[in-house]
């Protein structure tokens, strides 16, 4: 069955508001008509070389190339999969190998890293660069890379969004995997289109709104900013890494009206005394999510942005980023141990709280949160086993639910849902989703010992500020281990401290004892 392409909303806005700014970054900007032309050119260039490609790798972040790559992929009826260009090259290479596509939209700055990498891979790549490349020597086609710079691209015309099926994949976003292999979550056009329209409706977004795109393109939170904003004809303002050192200043300079970030960003702003009463009058919609949201931050933000509705949102990539809301500024000030509860399921979606055997638990009891609704994604890219484990059906119900891995307390009556913790070793580091097993797998490879345990440390109000590693019986020096890990892990997963022990402690069952190591960290703080 054919259905409207997710990006049809953008095309509609481009025809209604051709002269309005669509995207701003690094002091540069693209009007709607310019972004439409540029992305049409990308679609037509890919059509010319790779007609049958269904997924495009977008190797760009916080640049014009990034947004043009997203829109250009979708407008041509293809899905996109973003890879963060800041990843160390070993991780980039593994990610490229994991994706069955040889079409890349890249930002100019990544070419010096990308071209040597591609040489090592035994596939022929098409690399489209929608911005000018200053080092022209980068443009020489090599044995297995054809580089097409903006000047050589097909001329973009005012093309319509290609037809897609409801169930076609709009994007694949990779998250940390517990065995060191990243998991790609496949989101369909139907899911993200439903989500984008729901958000435009919920917040009455218009062409006068100015969104701050704080999340990296490789996080699903970016999709629930980009697509509602384009649907409404609004302007997306994208901070650079430097802008994020001083987020309050960026917010003021850009006149942001829609703010969405992890609470860790607000916590940094709070420490820099930026959350003073009434300083952010332009903001009218705020949502915090991606990790537990402390009540004190919601209160501080409500005072700093007095004209804004302020909400805590809970969700994950597997459920199109948003699953539940708590409208803090509207009197839903429900907390659990100093953190906002995760709130109420989005209308049109449903949840269950179940025990290990998938039986619904009694009100007030703790269990795993299951969700279902239009926001449920298609499972994991090229991984039937994990996809199979993700979906489940319950006794007496016909619809499929998805597992979150999150433990919650089943609410009493019509109350909101309190978050309790994780079933596994997934943690949040400054809002980034991290599987401790991902770090441990990297360490095992480097150290050739299985005597490794990673832990989040130090704790913050939301999750953790960083990661530490315990290693047993190694002769390698700490500095050497850290610099090796830097080559394979994104920066937020690199341990800031490695504790070398003769042997790791075991618990009564003969397993490595995480709890004992956590207590050791806690004691070292108490002594200090």
């Amino acid at each position, binding site marked *: 069955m054919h259905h409207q392409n997710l990006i049809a909303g953008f095309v509609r806005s481009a025809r209604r508001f051709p002269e309005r700014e669509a995207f701003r970054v690094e002091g540069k900007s693209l009007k709607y008509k310019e972004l439409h032309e540029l992305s049409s050119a990308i679609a037509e260039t890919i059509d010319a070389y790779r007609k049958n490609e269904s997924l495009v790798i977008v190797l760009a972040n916080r640049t014009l190339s990034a947004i043009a790559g997203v829109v250009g992929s979708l407008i041509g009826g293809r899905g996109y999969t973003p890879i963060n260009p800041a990843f160390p090259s070993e991780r980039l290479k593994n990610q490229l190998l994991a994706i069955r596509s040889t079409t890349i939209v890249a930002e100019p700055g990544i070419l010096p890293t990308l071209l040597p990498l591609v040489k090592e891979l035994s596939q022929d790549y098409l690399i489209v660069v929608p911005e000018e490349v200053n080092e022209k020597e980068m443009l020489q086609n090599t044995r297995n890379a054809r580089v097409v710079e903006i000047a050589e691209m097909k001329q973009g015309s005012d093309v319509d969004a290609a037809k897609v099926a409801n169930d076609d994949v709009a994007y694949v976003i990779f998250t940390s995997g517990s065995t060191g292999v990243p998991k790609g979550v496949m989101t369909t056009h139907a899911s993200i289109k439903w989500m984008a329209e729901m958000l435009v409706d919920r917040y009455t977004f218009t062409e006068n709104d100015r969104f701050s795109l704080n999340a990296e393109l490789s996080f699903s939170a970016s999709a629930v900013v980009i697509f509602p904003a384009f649907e409404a004809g609004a302007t997306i303002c994208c901070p650079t890494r*430097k*802008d994020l050192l001083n987020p309050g200043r960026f917010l003021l300079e850009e006149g942001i009206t829609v703010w969405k970030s992890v609470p860790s960003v607000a916590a940094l702003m709070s420490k*820099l005394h930026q959350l003073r009463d009434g300083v952010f009058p332009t903001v009218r919609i705020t949502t915090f999510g991606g990790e537990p949201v402390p009540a004190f931050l919601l209160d501080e933000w409500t005072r700093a942005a007095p004209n804004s509705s302020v909400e805590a949102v809970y969700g994950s990539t597997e459920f199109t980023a948003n699953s539940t809301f708590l409208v803090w500024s509207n009197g839903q000030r429900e907390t659990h141990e100093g953190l906002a509860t995760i709130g109420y399921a989005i209308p049109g979606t449903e949840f269950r709280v179940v025990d290990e055997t998938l039986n619904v638990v009694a009100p007030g009891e703790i269990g795993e949160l299951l969700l279902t609704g239009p926001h449920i994604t298609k499972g994991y890219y090229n991984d039937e086993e994990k996809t199979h484990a993700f979906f489940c059906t319950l006794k007496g119900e016909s619809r499929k639910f998805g597992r979150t891995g999150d433990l919650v307390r089943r609410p009493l009556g019509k109350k909101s849902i309190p978050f309790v913790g994780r079933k596994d070793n997934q943690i949040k580091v400054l809002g980034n989703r991290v599987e401790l097993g991902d770090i441990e797998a990297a360490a095992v490879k480097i150290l050739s010992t299985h005597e490794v345990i990673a832990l989040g440390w130090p704790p913050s109000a939301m999750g953790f500020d960083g990661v530490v590693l315990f290693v047993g019986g190694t002769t390698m020096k700490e500095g050497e281990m850290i610099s090796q890990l830097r080559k394979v892990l994104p920066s937020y997963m690199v341990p800031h401290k490695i504790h070398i022990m003769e042997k790791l402690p075991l618990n009564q069952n003969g397993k490595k004892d995480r709890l004992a190591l956590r207590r050791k960290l806690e004691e070292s703080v108490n002594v200090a």
Partner: protein
Amino acid sequence: MSLDDIRKMVYGNLQTHFENAGIHGHSEIDDSYDMVESGIVDSLGFVNLMLAMEKELGLTIDFLTLPTDQVSKFGALCLFLEKQSNQ
């Protein structure tokens, strides 16, 4: 507090990071040296540096007045801190 004192303090706070980048003293740092691009600080590192500077200088700094494009430049940041400390 002189500008040179401030430069020394900022360097001192991030000494290990600077040394890892091959810089062994505040006098070796150019005004235009970019602490983000060179990987000396990220956003959490920046906040920690600023909290330390506030403590040492006995100040509460208003960062909303610091232009975004200058935050990461060593020279501009030190100059900003010097002005704040002499207000």
